């Protein structure tokens, strides 16, 4: 953080609109607007100015009048103090984050996701003032990228290298999300999936901040096997694609290849996968390796154990079994070590030293509900007390 913070916790409640306007941070308006999934036009209508004026406020060309501050706060559901400059802030471009459902997300949706990640970084930064997190144990990580040449460019070889680096051997990875967290990578459930407008976003990750971040959205397909593959896919982006602009479908395929090799190493799979369509055996391997039967069929075809035609029959059969309820999803919540917990645990630890969600929110100039939302991955659904 640079310079003195003019808004210590004791002062934050007493700022006037004029004082907020005088210390107005243009980028906070942009961030809040993107998080609210609103266009400049939307905000302009809410506060009663022209869309061009909103653009000028966000670019810092002009400063909004004091009487607009409360209207901005109301329109974008943030405290008035949110717009005050002087707090540490991460700036993330949407090209610096990899989105799993690349083709189905819009620029607006990605903007919300990146704004969310910026806020997440602020939360992590605030918590790290009180709690020491694990060192980032990603070989070659330089606080924004992986040193070129650290990992092989080939996704499978990179997956094997990381397995070796993390001492995972050739065994099934029992607790993938916990393993990722234990190596200092911030992993979190995004509450985005409950938002109809951004529920298409499956997951995303970025290496552009001081800690690598993986954001998962389990609600989209609440199945632990898919969830684990998604987490491994995002890990693949961190290992393979630091510094490369996101948005290339080829990079998504590389991340898939990384995930498949990371979760089910070919050297082992070639010896354990059946050479004929044997759903009994595939089911047991699925449970043992924590991947879906469909993914194992895909792997079998990839390795050359099953023909394309047999794999197609298998997919059809799998879809039928799902429709008939014979194959059911396993909710992620039933697997505690696949649910991110590092941030929540860190706050619990800090609470023993007097930190609270409320004080965190005050430091961040957020509403406490927003802090809870990020920590729990849930939308704050507590009942609202209404005075009549």
């Amino acid at each position, binding site marked *: 953080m640079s310079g003195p913070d003019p808004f210590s916790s004791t002062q934050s409640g007493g700022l006037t609109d004029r004082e907020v306007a005088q210390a107005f941070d243009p980028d906070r308006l942009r961030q809040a607007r993107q998080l609210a999934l609103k266009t400049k036009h939307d905000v302009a209508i809410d506060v009663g100015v022209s869309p061009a004026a909103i653009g000028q406020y966000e670019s810092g060309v002009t400063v909004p009048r004091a009487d607009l501050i409360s209207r901005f706060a109301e329109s974008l559901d943030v405290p008035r103090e949110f717009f005050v400059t002087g707090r540490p802030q991460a700036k993330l471009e949407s090209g610096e984050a990899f989105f799993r459902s690349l083709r189905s997300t819009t620029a607006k949706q990605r903007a919300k996701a990146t704004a969310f990640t910026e806020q997440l970084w602020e939360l992590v930064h605030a918590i790290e003032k009180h709690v020491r997190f694990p060192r980032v144990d990603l070989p070659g990580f330089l606080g924004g990228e992986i040193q070129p040449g650290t990992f092989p460019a080939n996704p499978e070889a990179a997956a094997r290298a990381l397995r070796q680096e993390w001492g995972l051997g050739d065994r099934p990875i029992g607790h993938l999300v916990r393993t990722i967290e*234990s190596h200092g990578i911030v992993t979190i459930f995004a509450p985005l999936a409950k938002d109809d407008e951004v529920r298409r976003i499956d997951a995303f990750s970025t290496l552009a901040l001081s800690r690598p971040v993986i954001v998962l959205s389990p609600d989209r397909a609440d199945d632990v096997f898919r969830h684990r593959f998604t987490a491994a896919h995002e890990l693949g982006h961190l290992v393979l694609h630091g510094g490369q602009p996101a948005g290339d479908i080829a990079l998504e395929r590389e991340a898939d290849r990384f995930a498949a090799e990371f979760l089910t190493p070919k050297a082992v799979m070639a010896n354990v996968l059946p050479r004929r369509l044997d759903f009994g055996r595939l*089911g*047991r391997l699925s449970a043992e390796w924590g991947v879906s039967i469909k993914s194992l069929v895909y792997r079998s075809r990839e390795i050359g154990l099953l023909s394309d035609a047999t794999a197609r*029959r298998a997919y059809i*059969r799998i879809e039928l079994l799902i429709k008939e309820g014979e194959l059911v999803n396993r909710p992620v919540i039933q697997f505690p070590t696949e649910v991110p917990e590092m941030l929540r645990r860190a706050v619990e630890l800090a609470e023993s030293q007097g930190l609270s969600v409320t004080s965190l929110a005050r430091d961040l100039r957020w509403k406490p509900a927003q802090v809870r939302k990020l920590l729990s991955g849930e939308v704050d659904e507590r009942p609202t007390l209404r005075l009549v």
Partner: protein
Amino acid sequence: MPDSLTPSEWFADHFGDYSLAVMKALVAAGQDAHTRSLEAKAGSKLRTNDAYGASFWLVLPEEIVSHLVFLPGVEILKPRRGRYELVVFDNAMLFPSRIGGDSAAPDSIKLRTSKVRHEMFSLESRATLDEPLDFESLDYEEEAVGPRYVADFGSATSLIFAAYDCSARGGPQHVYVGDATLQEDGTVIWLYREELPLRALEDATTLTLVTDDLAPRFDDSAPPTTTLEIRNPGENAEDEELADPAAKDEGTGTENDERT
């Protein structure tokens, strides 16, 4: 499980973990085909078994399909204008047929012949050929009218022959399953044959396909530990490795059970 219910090597090779379920399904299909055919006979009020026989040849394949549809990746072939469907599982087509009378003994089975039947019994030798087959003459009872049509045997590259010795009076007596060839005169030569234990399979009310509670699970191992520590008063996070990558090695590190 009685020994008679232990699937043979041949069954295990063709149906894997589903062997026992397939054995039971084949017996149940024969029993259900018999019951439905008896109802046809009763409905016809004929003293002879014509209605029974006329029903059985159509009902049996239908029951086979409905009892084996649970198999993963199963292929059901219904040739255009064909009279019944056939099951293909793991590249093997199952062809059921009723036997009886003089040809009821397993070594003296004689089927009516047709070009298609010969093709079916020669699937292995024609597996490399790319020649479509017509199903028009598949069943001798079918009226050979209308345009010719073509169909193939899907992914089938071999044939499993299931012979049902079944009569209106006695019901299913024997069910033989195995690999066979068909001679020009319709004589069936078994290359491998086994008889299903009808009574034992009928009594087996529940079959467990895959139950192995002790099978390993991906989350059996101990989870790794994520070490979090309260910072000392005055300690500044920004002095650490995150702000200065060169100082990374001075971090607290991570205790990971899976690394040791």
